[in-house]
Structure formats: structure tokens, C-alpha cells
């Protein structure tokens, strides 16, 4: 058995068929014996009928307009992505240009030097560093003194190696520049020869060449 409060909370479910069998049976039995709840149920039935009577305007989706709108949206998205892609590509190209052509990295006077611009003239190779005896700082144990000395020596050798690599790289760049110049001169010479041969052929075939004259 259920009371009116429980019954009324389930009237909507009964009306719409959302109650399971036993619950529906119990509720119907209550409605048969309770005029107030029965009246409430009848009112909800009328509400449901009223909702069913509300009409809806007929609608016909305009497919032509839909396709036009879809096209416009897709084109504007494409334009946005293109702008993003072009900006990203431009940035990447700028970075690549900056870092691959003009950047100079060197180890100089115990510090890393980064420079922009053309590489400087090749400098004579530095003489290999002579090993020096490191005097032990006061108060350090003897084994640590040896370790410090070895570390310092390693750092010096590393710096020398970096400097000599840098010099070799600069020499290679200079060599490449010379090679490019040679190739440019050869190309110009070949072009001059070709132009001379063409003029000669023209003269041989058509006679002397005057400006504007027809063959």
C-alpha cells in the first residue's frame, strides 16, 4: 500500500507508461480508492492532451542556402589555416636562415661566444697549450689537487679543440666561396662563348645584323 504523497510523485510516470508492472498495479489500486489522487491524475491527463494540441509551424530546410553557408564556413576555416601555416613557415624559414647562415659559435677566453654576421678572417692556429703545474690551493688534500689539475687540463684541451674546429670550418667556408666564384666565372665565360657563336651563325645565315632589320 502507498500513501497519497508517494502516489502523486509517481502519477506522471504512470501516465507516460514509465512505471514497471507491480508499481503500476499498486498505484492504480490506490487511485481506485482515492478520489483526490484520481482527480490529480485526470488533471495530468488533460495537461498531456493540451500539450498534444499545440501545433508546430511546417518547416522546409533550404538546402541551397545550407550548402552555401557550409561552403563559406569551410572557406573561411581554410583561409585561417592557410594564414597560420604561412606565418609558421615564414617564422621557421627566418629561424633557419638566421641559424644556418650567420651564426658563429666559439669558445673564447673561457666563455661561449655567439656572433651574428660573416665569419671573420681565418686566424693562425693557436699553439698547443703547454701543460702547467698547478699549485695546490692551500688546505686541499693531495689527491684532490691532482683531480683539479687534470680537470683544468681537459678543459684547456677542449677549448683548443673547439678553436681549431672553428678555424677549419672558417677555412672550409672560404674555400667554398672561392669555388663559387670560380664556377660563376666559368659560367660567364661559357655564356660569352655561346653568345658569340649564336651571333656568328646569325650573321652567316642572315647577313650583317642591323638593329631592327628583318632577316
Amino acid at each position, binding site marked *: 500500500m502507498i500513501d497519497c504523497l508517494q502516489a502523486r510523485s509517481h502519477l*506522471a*510516470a504512470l501516465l507516460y507508461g514509465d512505471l514497471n508492472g507491480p508499481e503500476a498495479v499498486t498505484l492504480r489500486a490506490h487511485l481506485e480508492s482515492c478520489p483526490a489522487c484520481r482527480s490529480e491524475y485526470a*488533471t495530468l491527463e488533460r495537461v498531456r492532451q493540451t*500539450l498534444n*494540441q*499545440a501545433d*508546430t509551424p511546417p518547416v522546409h530546410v*533550404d538546402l541551397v*542556402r545550407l550548402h552555401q553557408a557550409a561552403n563559406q564556413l569551410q572557406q573561411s576555416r581554410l583561409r585561417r589555416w592557410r594564414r597560420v601555416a604561412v606565418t609558421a613557415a615564414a617564422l621557421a624559414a627566418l629561424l633557419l636562415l638566421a641559424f644556418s647562415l650567420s651564426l658563429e659559435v666559439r669558445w673564447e677566453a673561457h666563455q661561449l661566444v655567439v656572433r651574428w654576421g660573416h665569419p671573420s678572417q681565418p686566424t693562425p692556429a693557436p699553439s698547443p697549450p703547454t701543460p702547467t703545474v698547478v699549485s695546490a690551493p692551500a688546505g686541499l688534500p693531495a689527491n684532490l689537487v691532482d683531480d683539479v689539475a687534470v680537470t683544468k687540463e681537459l678543459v684547456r684541451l677542449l677549448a683548443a679543440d673547439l678553436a681549431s674546429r672553428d678555424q677549419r670550418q672558417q677555412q672550409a667556408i672560404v674555400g667554398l666561396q672561392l669555388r663559387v666564384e670560380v664556377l660563376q666565372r666559368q659560367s660567364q665565360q661559357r655564356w660569352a662563348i655561346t653568345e658569340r657563336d649564336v651571333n656568328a651563325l646569325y650573321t652567316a645565315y642572315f647577313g650583317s645584323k642591323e638593329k631592327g632589320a628583318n632577316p
Partner: protein
Amino acid sequence: MDAEIVRRWQEGDPAAFEALVRRWQQPMARFLTRLVGDAEATADLCQEVFLRVYLAGPRYREAGTFAAWLYRIALNVARDAGRKERRHSASLESVAPKAQASPADHCEQQELTRLVDEALQTLPEPLREVLVLRHFENLHFEEMARLLSTPASTLKSRFAVALDRLRRTLQLRGWTVEENT
């Protein structure tokens, strides 16, 4: 049937999309009209729903039913329209009254529809959504639970509350049980 039409559409058949639109435009119109309460805006809202369907078509995967996916889109369109309407109303110093039916146009059917739509709009959005989905779209609570990401038991309670409030609002606006019998 929807699954087959959607499959053909995704394979590039434009007639399949048209078939989907023709099949669902009136149910969407009914759903949106009841949810938004503005019959004049229904055509534009339907257009928006199917535009979003068209654009999202390539991404549609049959995790649930096509109908559930469509209702999700329509619900978002209705909620966006409701938000725009609230922003618009809040920005006006005096809110223009909705156009009333002229005496010439007045008829019982239109009056009833207007009464129902106004009463529905007095319900808070969560209650209105449940009522419209259960009564007008005949969605069961389990389907609704997936659509609204809310437990079915919660939705059942909301539905009972919504129906009761709607009844009170209709009665306050002059509706009686004996009318239209």
C-alpha cells in the same frame, strides 16, 4: 533506416543527406519550437541544426543512434539561442513585448499553442528539456540520460516536477481541466 542513409551520405551520396533532412526537419521543428518557445525562429534554428549536421557529418561515428546525435546538436542550438536571447534581453532598457495575435488571426488552436509555449518557457531549462524530450519526442529516460549526461532517476524526478509546474502555470493563465472537452 537512419544508419543506412547516414552510411550512404558519408560515402558521398548527396541525395542521402537530403533524405535525412526531409525525414527529420519536422521533428526538429517541433522539438525546437517547444524548447525555445519562438515559432518565428524555428526555421532559422532548423537551418542551423542541419548546417551543423552537414559540417560534422564526416566525424559522425555510430557510437549511439543518429537520432541521439541529432538531438544533441539540436539541444546545443537551442541552448545557444536561449543564451543569445537572454543576453539580448538583458541589454535592452525596455523589453519589447512579443507580438500578440491580432483579433483577425485569433483562433482557439493558435491561442492554445501560445498558451502552451508560454507556459513551457516559464519552466527552468533543465525541467523544460526533460518535458519536451519525454512528451514531444517520446524519448525514454535511459536514452535521455545518455543525451543529457544525467542519471535516469534524476530525469524521472525532474519530469514529474516539470509536469506538475506546467499544470499550475496553465491553471494560473486561465486554463481549466474542462476546456476543450
